[in-house]
Structures are given as C-alpha cells and as structure tokens.
C-alpha cells in the first residue's frame, strides 16, 4: 500500500516487515526517528522484538554481536560519531561472520559539530568487512533493508544500508509499504548456519594462530566476492515479487554518453534532472548511480564507464591527503582497463551543503571544458574565508 512516510519510517517499516527479533541502538541525530518508530512498534506490539536500550553505540553493536550469535535476526541504526564509536566491533561483526543489518544515516563528523549529511562516516568504515548499500529515496530505503537481510544471511556478512541525513531520513515521500505475506515470501525466517546453543556448548572467536588466520580472512574475501553475485540473485527474487530492482549500479543515458556523472545517495535525484535538462539541449551526458559500494562492483562499473570519454565523480566525502573516496574507487576499478577515460573528481555538499542543479551543471561544464582534470579533487563552491 502506498503511504507517505518519512525516510526514517521507511527504514522502520522494513525492519518491522523483516520480523526482526532484537533491536539494539543508541539514539543520535539524524538516526533518532528510526529507533523512535521502532520502539513504538515494539511497545504497541506491531513488532514482536526485544528493544534493548544501551549506553553507547559500542554497546549497541556488542549486544547485537551476542544476539546474532544465538541465531536471531537483528537490527541497529546509527550516524556519524556513533558509527565511529562502533569501529572496533564493525570488524568483529564481519570477522565473526554474523549477518545483521544497520541503517547508517550519513552525518558529518565533528568537530565542529554538524548533524547534516556527509558520507565520510560510512566510507571511513569501508575496510571493516561490511556490505554497503547506498540509497536514493524512501522506496529504495525500504526495499534495500529487506534485500540486505536476504543478502547478508546468504553470505554471512553484515550489511550497512546508507541513507543521507535529512534529505532522505527526514523527507516524506510516497512509499509502497508491502504486505507482510509478500515480504515473508521474499524473506523467510532466518536459519543460522551456526549459533550458540546451551545444549551444545561452544565458544566462538577464540585465539587463532597464523597457520589459519589468513585462511579465515580469505574466506571473508571470498564471501564478499560471492555477495556480488548474490546481490544480483536477491534482486531477481525481489523483482519477481515486488516488480522493482535497482542494480549494483544504475546507468542513465550512458549508452552514447561522452561524459558520465557518477553519484550516490540523494544527489542522484538532482543529477537525474540535470541530465534530462542537458540532454534536451543536445549534450551527450550520462549518469551512473552507484548503489553497491562493498563489495565494489568493478565489472558493472567498467561496463558502464569504459565507453565514455570522461567520467566526473561527485563526492560528498573526503579522504584527507587523498581525495574524494568514490573517485578513488572508480579510478582503482578502471586503472587496469586499457584505454579507460580520465576521472574528474569533484567535492560537493560537504557537511550538508546543498548540491543544487547549478552545482551539477557547473561540474559538467568544468569537465567538458578541460582536456585533463585540473586537480585530483576540485572543491565546488568554496567561499572566501
């Protein structure tokens, strides 16, 4: 049924429909509405889950590690500093091969304190072994949470579903909230491959010597590789029931494009409008939306971007001393492909600043008018300070 819901509620509705057994979270703006909705669902009985109030994000994730070890489907959500505090346990979750889903509402890191959108928090966790999926709108958020459970449980890895602060978390949009039976047919009950069981006592996570640690890490790498194919399979299954799919990347007008913009999150929606406007004026511009970031869909990215003459990546994040993180990843994906197009990196919208159609058009113009990138990262709209 179509309902007008806030992005945060789209997350909460999906968690309810996924029949999650345990929620453990610590409130932080802009994630707060998600856990507020969920605590209400738990209180009014519409979700039969244990809601754990904990004293920090570190504890929130630690509690879920214990929970999921007993074979329960679980959920948490956080933002910015909260995610940073979870860092140690992010590694633990994937190392322990515990599937769970986290909604990560992108928020700029302090100082100075800033509650607005910035992707540096989630991208700083790219090496923790979590699958990362970036969303553009409320419907995609709801659908991706459901897909994330299916995917994570297939490959025994945790999944982070990432959405923009406010532009997505606090924006009301029409969202199709599916019936429980339909969701149940897509997402059956969680059957753990291993679990703590008092009837068969054992301990997980014990000391591992060099003669086997490497193999264990390799198995995570292989599982991440599996996740690429599994994501496609999950999307197939999802599409059969709900009629929607997103792809690890989405290519818009890329077939004949000379310049392809690469975006993530809500900037994609604005870029769609810009691309349509520029196309109407005869510009050969395309747009690639990156949804799946870990595992990185190298093949899909190459297939989409290789035909272009130039690629312009818009990063709402920054790795100090290096550059925009998505641009780095795109460069890495293309560098071993002979004849790949040059990658133009643009930094825009840091700390919640608007990325307007004018900003995107300026990016396009700059890319079109320079034969080679003027810098590894070009900061857009910097004011005199």
């Amino acid at each position, binding site marked *: 049924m179509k309902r007008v819901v806030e992005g945060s509620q789209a997350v909460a509705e999906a968690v309810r429909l996924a029949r999650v057994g345990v929620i453990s979270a610590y409130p932080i703006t802009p994630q707060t509405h998600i856990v507020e909705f969920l605590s209400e669902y738990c209180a009014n009985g519409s979700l039969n889950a244990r809601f754990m109030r904990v004293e920090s994000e570190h504890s929130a994730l630690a509690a879920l590690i214990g929970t999921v070890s007993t074979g329960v489907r679980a959920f948490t959500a956080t933002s910015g500093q909260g995610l940073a505090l979870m860092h140690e346990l992010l590694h633990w979750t994937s190392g322990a091969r515990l599937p769970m889903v986290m909604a990560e509402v992108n928020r700029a890191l302090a100082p100075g304190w800033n509650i607005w959108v910035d992707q540096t928090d989630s991208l700083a966790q790219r090496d923790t072994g979590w699958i990362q999926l970036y969303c553009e709108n409320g419907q995609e958020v709801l659908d991706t949470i459901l897909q994330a459970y299916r995917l994570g449980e297939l490959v025994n890895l945790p999944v982070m579903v990432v959405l923009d602060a406010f532009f997505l978390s606090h924006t009301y949009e029409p969202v199709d909230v599916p019936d429980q039976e339909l969701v149940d047919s897509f997402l059956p009950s969680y059957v753990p*491959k291993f679990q703590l069981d008092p009837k068969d006592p054992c301990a997980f996570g*014990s000391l591992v010597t060099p003669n086997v640690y490497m193999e264990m890490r390799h198995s995570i790498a292989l599982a991440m590789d599996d996740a690429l194919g599994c994501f496609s399979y999950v999307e197939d299954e999802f599409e059969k029931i709900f009629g929607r799919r997103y792809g690890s990347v989405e290519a818009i007008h890329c077939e004949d494009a000379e310049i392809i913009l690469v975006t993530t999150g809500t900037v994609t929606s604005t870029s769609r409008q810009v691309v349509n406007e520029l196309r109407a004026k005869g510009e050969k511009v395309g747009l690639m939306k990156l949804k799946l970031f870990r595992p990185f869909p190298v093949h899909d990215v190459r297939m989409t971007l290789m035909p272009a003459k130039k690629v312009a990546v818009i990063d709402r994040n920054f790795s100090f001393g290096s550059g925009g993180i998505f641009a780095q990843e795109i460069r890495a994906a293309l560098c071993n492909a002979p004849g790949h197009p040059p990658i133009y990196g643009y930094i825009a919208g840091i700390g919640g600043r608007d990325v307007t159609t004018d900003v995107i058009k300026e990016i396009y113009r700059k890319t079109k008018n320079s034969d080679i990138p003027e810098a590894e990262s070009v900061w857009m709209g910097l004011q005199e300070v």
Partner: protein
Amino acid sequence: MGEKAEIIIGDHLLIPCSRMSTLSNKTGSWRFLRPRYDEKTAPCSAACPAGEDIAMVEMLTTQGSFKEAWDTILRENPFPAVCGRVCFHPCEGRCNRGEFDEAIAIHGIERFLADTAARNEFKSSLEKRPPRKEKIAIVGAGPSGLAAAYFLTMLGYACDVFEAMPEAGGVLRWGIPEYRLPVSVLRSEIARIEAMGVRIYTGKAVSSDFLSKAQDEYHAVFMGCGHSRSRKLAIPGEDLEGLEEGISFLNAIRRGETASVHETVAVIGGGNTAVDVARSIVRLGGKAIIVYRRRREDMPAFDDEITMALEEGVEIRELLAPVRIDGTGESYTLTVRAMRVAGTDSDGRAAIEPAGEESEEIVVQKIFKAIGEEAAEEWYRPGERGGQQLTLSNSILVRQPDGVVVAYGGDLTNDVKSVVHAVASGKEAAMALDILFRKGLDAIKTELSAYVVGSGPSLSMEIYMAGPRCERNHHVVAYNEINIDYFHLSPRITQPRLLIDERKKTFGEIDLKISANLAIRETERCFNCGLCNQCDNCYLFCPDIAVCHDESKQGRHINYDYCKGCGLCVVECPRNAMILEEEGQ
C-alpha cells in the same frame, strides 16, 4: 595453548569455534591478591549499648523474617517492645546512611518487630546453656535487674528477683509515663522473662543485712534497685508544704492516683523526669514551665522528648537557677537568678555562673522538683561495705569482706541513666558472674574484652555464647567503605504520631504503629553495613565465574582455582562484606 581450534567450514565460511572447556585454564595461578567473604561490624550495633545486631535485624526484616529479626534482638536485649518505645536510639546517630540521606529508623523498626511478635504470639527460640548449680539473687525488678536475670538464666543460672513495689518493672512501670510506654507492653515483656524461669517476688523489700545473709542461699547478688529518691535543691523554702518531688508525682500517676491539674506549674530540672512531669501536667489540664539552670541543648533529657514537650505547649525557661521558694499552699513564688555560660565543666557540659545580681520571681500554683534522682539507701551504693572492687563499663563487681560477691548495675553505676544502659549493665554483670564462677575474678576483664561489639564497650551475648556472630570482624564499617553507587536517595519513614491536640488530652500512646509494608520499605534503605545480604554482586561481576553458589550459610564460595584476584567482587560489594588480602598473609 594445547587446544586445537575447531573450525566451522561452510561456503566461504571459516570461523574458530572451541568446544573445549575453559576450565583447563586455571587462572587462579595468576593471583597475588585473594578476596574472601569477611563480615564486619555495623556502626549502629557498636553504638547500641546493648550491642544489638542491628544490621542483621534490618536485613531479616527486609526479607520478611520478622520472627528471626525479633529473636536476633532478643539475643542481646530482653526489652524490644520497651526499647522500641523509650530508647534514645544512639544507634541512629551512628548510622552510615545518615551521611547519605537520613539514618534508618532503627528505633521504629525495633518497635514494629516487637509489636508484630506480640500480635502473632511469637515464641522466642533462644539458645540456653545447661543449668548450673549457682543461684543468683537480684535486688530490684527494674530494667537492669530483669536484664541480669534474663541473661543469667540464658547462661544456666537460677535467679530470684526481689522487688519492693507491688509489680515488677521499676522505672518502666512507675516512672516513665503511659503515653511513652503502655503498661500492657511492659507486662508482656516481663511475662516472657518469667516464662524463661525467672522468679520475681514483688512486694518484697530487701533490707541492708540481705547482702550478708544472701550467701546462705545465693552465690552472688545483683543490685539493680535504681535511683528513686529525688535530689535536694539545697535552697531556702525547698521543704515548704505542698512542694512535690517529680518522681513521686509520676509514680502516683502510674498508680492511677492523680486528679486533674488546672494551675500553672513550675518544674525545676532538665532531665527526663522533669520533661515527663511537665508533659504529664499538660495532659492533666495544667500549664507547665520547666525551669533549668543551663541551656536547652544542655538538658540531659532526650532530645525527641524535649521537642515533643515544646510541641505540646510546655514552656522552657533556660539559664535560670532557683534561689529560693516562698509561698503558701495556694501560690508559690520561685525566685530565680539569671545564669550565663562560662566554659565547660568537668563532664563536658556547659559550665554556668550568675549573669549578674538580678533575680526574677516566677509565680506559680505548684512546684515540682526534678533535678535528678539518687539511690534511696546508702547501702545500695557499691563499695559502701568495703571489699575488692572491679569496675567494668556498665557495672561494678564487689567481693565483700565476708566473701559475698555483689554486682551493681543500672542507675547505681551508669553515667547515662537509660533503659538500654540498664540492659547493658545486666548483660555485663551476667557475663562477669559467669566468668567469675568458671575462671575467677581476675579473668573477668580480659575475658569480657573478647565479647565486645566492634571496639566496645557494648557486649554481645551471642558472641559470648559462640553464636554465628562471633565470626564477625570487629572492624566497624565506615561510610566511605560503602559502595554508594548501589543505593539511591530515599526518604526515611516518618513516625506516625497522635496529633498534638490529641496528645494534650490523653495519656494514650503517642507513637502509632507502622505497617509491615512501611517497615520493609524502611529496612530496604539499610546499607546492611558489613553483612552479606546475598545480593549476588560478587557472582555477577566475577569475570572468571569463580564465585560459585552452594548450600553453605554464605550461599556461595570462591573457587580459587580460577579466581585471579582482580578484586572486582570486593569493589562491587555494596556493603563491605568482603576483603582483599595479599596472598600468603
């Protein structure tokens, strides 16, 4: 590690899994500090002259074990119903909880337990030693004499109590007013003492030659005949007709002889007798003025009693020393001189001196003298007849020249004239006589020092009789040894009382009963300083699961194979019932 990691293998799923018990890793070998359970002494119990095991009483009350809590009091004090009403509760002044928010209402809980025992007709289950051949004569059935008889009976001695008045109780029966201590309450406590086998002969005054004649029948005598004669004012007019002694007035009221009073009455003195007289006058319809030489804060009367007297309309004129009394049977003029404080006297109270030459005349219709009491007969005092004398904390033992051993206690020996000090006398004398018969006079002092509560001087009969309390460490738990993180602020119960207007009209008991619900809630506030109340924090916090539940009295023990001596249990014990010691000590 001598342990092969088992591995779960699935599709690209490789994780370590151990099915081997961690019990193979005896972490106890890392330990250089050793925690152990070590119950200590609560400050309230050390402050109680009777040495009552108060922290244990509160703990048992919290658990709803009212009978056991009452028995715990009875091991140290035969008068919970009396002390729960008239004791000045020094325990509460030392309560560690007082430093956190407000002291536990120990006094009110004692009364609650006694009332509950009476209502449910509990029969006390006290340990009693096998009978001994020695018989003890006790002179005076007041609180010290009855306490001596009670504890001596516990220790196996046959006791005969001789009481001059027609009924037992002493000051409890004839001095303290009904509104503080109903006679029915006293009678039931005395009946319980008699039921133990104590014989009380009332209406049997004892003469001075008794102390010599007693040896024909008795092996020792306890003198607990109290102070019943008013002290003299030593001022002109003191012996005018119509001037009364406060203690006789109270006595007459308790005999049921007093008519109403409609006049303004002066009461000279500042002790409990003076306050009791003044408050009784209010109840009989009169107006009472207490005239006292020192300041209100110097009055030896218990503070609560003074406060309630003021509430009831008693006037206190302080720093006024009586100089002379004039008058007829109708009206008296009390001439007083204003005094001022001039340093401190030898017993720590404010010293006073005349503030000037001026005097004031207070005109009243009646005057009561209540400046304190003394022994009614010279021979009641210890040492009057010579002999070897042993002075203890609350009693004096004398081996007379004729060989008879006489123990003196209660008001005859105590600086503080209180019921609980009288109980302390009776207990101390009982222990001292027992040691005398078993080991001789010289052993008494050293022996007694082993049975003190904390650092003394309170003595514990439970420790003396080798009960579980003798395992208690004598260290008195200080406030900073309590882990206050485990307690939250909560107000002390308010003792329900008759309304002031009701109090002024009746001799009915002022303090009303509290419900079991309130009592439990109040005792839940108790830190239980030094005692294990099975809160299980040690068990919950032990990172090595080395605290193991068992069937012992402690309910748990530490498995030193695995305890690595981190000390978490000791730190997290809210009430200092554990200790951490260096290994090998």
